[in-house]
């Protein structure tokens, strides 16, 4: 983390802002190293005490017991304080230079396009709460030149992942998607690609770098994040057509894409939305086209009580209400149900650069956050 920018749209930090961001990073790290082990111990002890005749108590009972323990209360407060300070630190940095950022967006090379919909209605599952506790959520947008929400998101991404998601570009997930395709479908060369739920386009630009001649599209629900994403991509030399749409129902033609993918989007939707998104992927893919979804590496069948507590925090205190829902969702069955073939779902090792010559990483054991991702992919029959 320095005062230099990894791309022209990234808000530059001055001395004090950098100091504040480093403090947030240090505090989050402290909580992870010092409070989290206590939480782990408390959760396991509580679960053990509630166990009867070798049968684990329901998690809601474990949570009820934990709720009276200061270690649990302090852990939640500290985790969330770190998250809220992170957004505040990023927002202060962005607000100091907002005019400059909007001018920089206007000066981006004329690559790709941006289409926003003033009548767009944000899905209820996103409107109900600010995802990740980012004030304003994904959709905050105050003018037709506003890039603030995207700039804050981009500035905070590095702090959020403690730098484990591909450095300041935070683009690891895009590289993992391409690595997955190279392993499962060698030689696949998509000509028309769609990124669902692109936010500021970190993964979009990464995937586009492997398919420079493709007609590349990306959608999201927020006009502000899309405006930023368009400028960010153009400044980085990527021609991407961004539009404000829901992944559940797009305005793209039937059979019009070779590749439709998403990166850590499904867990921010809902039970019904995931089904609609898979159906929409099937509708807009050409026969022979690929659907690829990357998700957080959490599966209900392998989560212990500690995983339950962490998932519960994400759902209740970090405003990711479908976090646990997606972990228990049978995504490969859904993919088959909507008509995909050659479906597979498993963990994929993380990479920061995709290569057809890399050691295969799909189907490997789950190594945890930022070291593994959960993937589901399939092909539309025909082609």
């Amino acid at each position: 983390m320095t005062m230099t920018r990894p791309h022209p749209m990234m808000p530059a930090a001055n001395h004090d802002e950098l100091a504040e961001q480093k403090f947030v990073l240090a505090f989050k790290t402290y909580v992870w190293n010092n409070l989290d082990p206590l939480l782990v111990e408390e959760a396991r002890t509580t679960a053990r005490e509630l166990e009867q005749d070798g049968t684990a108590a329901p998690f809601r009972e474990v949570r009820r017991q934990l709720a009276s323990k200061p270690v649990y209360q302090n852990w939640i407060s500290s985790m969330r304080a770190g998250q809220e300070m992170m957004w505040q630190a990023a927002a202060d940095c962005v607000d100091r230079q907002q005019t400059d950022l909007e001018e920089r967006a206007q000066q981006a090379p004329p690559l790709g396009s941006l289409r926003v919909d003033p009548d767009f209605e944000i899905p209820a599952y996103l409107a109900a709460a600010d995802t990740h506790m980012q004030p304003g959520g994904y959709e905050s947008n105050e003018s037709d030149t506003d890039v603030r929400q995207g700039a804050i998101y981009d500035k905070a991404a590095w702090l959020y992942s403690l730098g484990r998601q591909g450095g300041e570009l935070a683009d690891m997930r895009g590289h993992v998607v391409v690595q997955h395709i190279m392993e499962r479908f060698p030689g696949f060369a998509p000509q028309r690609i769609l990124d669902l739920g692109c936010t500021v386009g970190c993964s979009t630009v990464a995937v586009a770098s492997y398919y420079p001649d493709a007609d590349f599209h990306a959608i999201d629900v927020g006009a502000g994040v899309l405006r930023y994403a368009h400028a960010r991509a153009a400044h980085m030399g990527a021609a991407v057509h961004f539009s404000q749409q829901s992944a559940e129902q797009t305005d793209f033609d039937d059979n019009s894409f070779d590749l439709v993918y998403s990166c850590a989007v499904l867990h921010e939707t809902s039970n019904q939305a995931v089904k609609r998104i898979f159906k929409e992927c099937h509708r807009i893919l050409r026969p022979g086209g690929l659907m690829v979804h990357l998700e957080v590496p959490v599966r209900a069948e392998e989560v212990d009580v500690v995983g339950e507590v962490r998932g519960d925090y994400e759902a209740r205190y970090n405003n990711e209400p479908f976090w646990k829902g997606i972990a228990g969702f049978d995504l490969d069955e859904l993919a088959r149900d909507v008509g995909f073939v050659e479906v597979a779902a498993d963990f994929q090792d993380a990479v920061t650069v995709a290569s057809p010559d890399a050691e295969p990483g799909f189907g490997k054991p789950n190594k945890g956050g930022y070291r593994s991702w959960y993937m589901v992919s399939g092909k539309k029959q025909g082609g």
Partner: protein
Amino acid sequence: MANRAHTKSHRGRRLVPGPDPRVDTLLGMVMALTSEVSMLRERLDAHESLAASGKVPDQDAVDHYQPTEADESRRKQYRDRLIDKVCRPLVASGQQDG
């Protein structure tokens, strides 16, 4: 500047379990204040570094001061010690709790 009152609040912010929600509020306030102390300390560090190299530590010079590796190493030690000092009671109470 546009009115962004709605972006200062968190929709869906759930209360932390515990006897008094003000504990959570106070923890947030203490950590925000601690971050200001840390920033102030680093700003003082920048002043001292500029002065040691014979430069005038005016506002612009400090705002654009890029810490060296040695600066950062020293600052990291201070930052970590500060957080440990402020948060030690949290860890201690957690250890007693367990």
